[in-house]
């Protein structure tokens, strides 16, 4: 090949091509400026001028009081058990819902309503769902389990369906071509492909549910959260600090456990 002509210049982006980026970033900056006052960002210096209050709170936190550790550990264990059941029920609900919400395997007249239904489920805060079950079954862990189950199934079903929508169509067609039923296509063609991602999502939700279950203590759903809020309300900061340590240790343990499971499965 003869190279007689000049080498063309490197590509340059015109203003028209850059305009969307400028609008996006400019818009974000304007939005941050607007939100400055409502979010009370002007109070930022208080973090340093009022450091005396912080020190007092900090002193309590520095000396965690573990005298009631048996109670804390047993309550944390209760919370983990709530999270375990809440997540399990959510997985059982999210698997079929996630498949039904996937564009590539479910016809639109089912898929779109299921998607909207999941949007609604996800947009109801866990605390509100918890209150509803509290009224239905009375205060206690079961209300918390159901609140976690419903909220998590909405999130997991959406994540599951996104995993299904990104599968390779080839293996599914391979199964279809053998004369398998639609259910066989899902069991043998779809599930093996999404299994690692589904497991990963489910483990992550179990982890985060162990934390969320803490918040549900606020509405009387039992577990470590209830003890946490009782001690906060009593300004017993040393006890609070001990409880927080128990939660951190428990969540870290669960994180390590799920890492181990994940690396075995992938």
């Amino acid at each position, binding site marked *: 090949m003869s190279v007689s002509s000049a080498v063309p210049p490197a590509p340059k982006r015109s203003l028209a091509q850059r305009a969307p980026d400028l609008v996006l970033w400019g818009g974000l900056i304007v939005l941050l400026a607007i939100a400055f006052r409502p979010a009370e960002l002007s109070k930022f210096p208080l973090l340093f001028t009022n450091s005396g209050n912080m020190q007092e709170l900090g002193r309590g936190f520095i000396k965690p009081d573990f005298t009631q550790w048996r109670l804390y550990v047993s309550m944390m264990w209760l919370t983990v058990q709530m999270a375990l059941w809440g997540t399990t029920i959510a997985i059982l609900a999210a698997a079929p819902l996630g498949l039904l919400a996937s564009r590539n395997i479910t016809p639109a007249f089912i898929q779109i309503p299921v998607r909207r239904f999941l949007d609604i489920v996800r947009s109801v805060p866990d605390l509100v769902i918890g209150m509803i079950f509290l009224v239905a079954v009375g205060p206690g862990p079961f209300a918390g389990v159901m609140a976690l189950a419903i909220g998590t199934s909405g999130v997991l079903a959406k994540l599951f369906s996104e995993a299904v929508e990104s599968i390779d169509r080839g293996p599914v067609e391979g199964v279809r*071509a053998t004369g398998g*039923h639609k259910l066989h296509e899902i069991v*043998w063609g779809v599930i093996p492909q999404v299994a690692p991602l589904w497991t990963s999502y489910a483990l992550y939700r179990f982890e985060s549910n162990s934390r969320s279950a803490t918040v549900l203590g606020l509405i009387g759903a039992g577990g470590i959260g209830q003890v946490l809020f009782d001690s906060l309300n009593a300004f017993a900061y040393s006890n609070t600090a001990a409880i927080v340590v128990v939660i951190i240790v428990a969540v870290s343990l669960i994180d390590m456990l799920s890492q181990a499971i994940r690396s075995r499965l992938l």
Partner: protein
Amino acid sequence: MKPGYYGKAPKTLMPDAAVLSIRNVSKTFGQRRALDGVSLEATKGEMIALIGPSGSGKSTLLRSISALQTIDAGPGEIVAFGGPVQKDGRIDSNVRKTRTRIGMIFQQFNLVGRLSLFTNVALGSLGRINFWQAALGLWPAETKQSAMSALHRFGVSDYATQRANTLSGGQQQRGAIARALVQKAKIILADEPVASLDPVSARRVMEILRELNKNDGLTVLVTLHQVDYALRYCDRVVALKAGKVVYDGPSGGLKREQLIDIYGPEFEDVFWEGAPT
């Protein structure tokens, strides 16, 4: 196994009855006509190569035969073993029965990567065993046996417990053919079965297909990019160009002029091992 030319005599069909009939089939993708009034008959025991340049409709035709995609509404019709596969743009409701008798081999093998080679091959029996056994993977003894004997026959039984995605392309493709065998397929549709393989694996796969055709009496319809493979392994060649059949006859009748007509003056490019002069 006794070598029988063109297999055993068919039991239910006339000796030269068509096992596969494609009648006036068209398929349009947007503005593009992938198939334009294609008609083709395959008799039992034939080994047919489907050739033509990229985008000529070869894959579309095979995918239509196994009803992985619909054809255009209209007079078009595909019939296999006397039963309808699809007609007038609609896939027949009994297509799953028909599919069990048609094995499909893909360019990308289409095994399920995370499942073992054995499980992938056992999937061939999905359409003919109990629904729940199939869904739960409780393979009947007959499935296990035919899966292992098919793997053994193609020299890949050593890899039965390995995940399919850890195997080489040639091993996966032989697994895919084993799956078609477990399916007890009577027709094999192979869509560019050797296009992703190295020449040695490619020849091996073509020889297996030829053997299934000669020894087991299977009807084979194979799309090929390499025309020399079509000439070497197939008795009959059907050439497609822009969705139309432009040649249908014995592979020996395909001469330089026809090839130039099909592929243009650079037709030598579609030969791996030398073009005819």
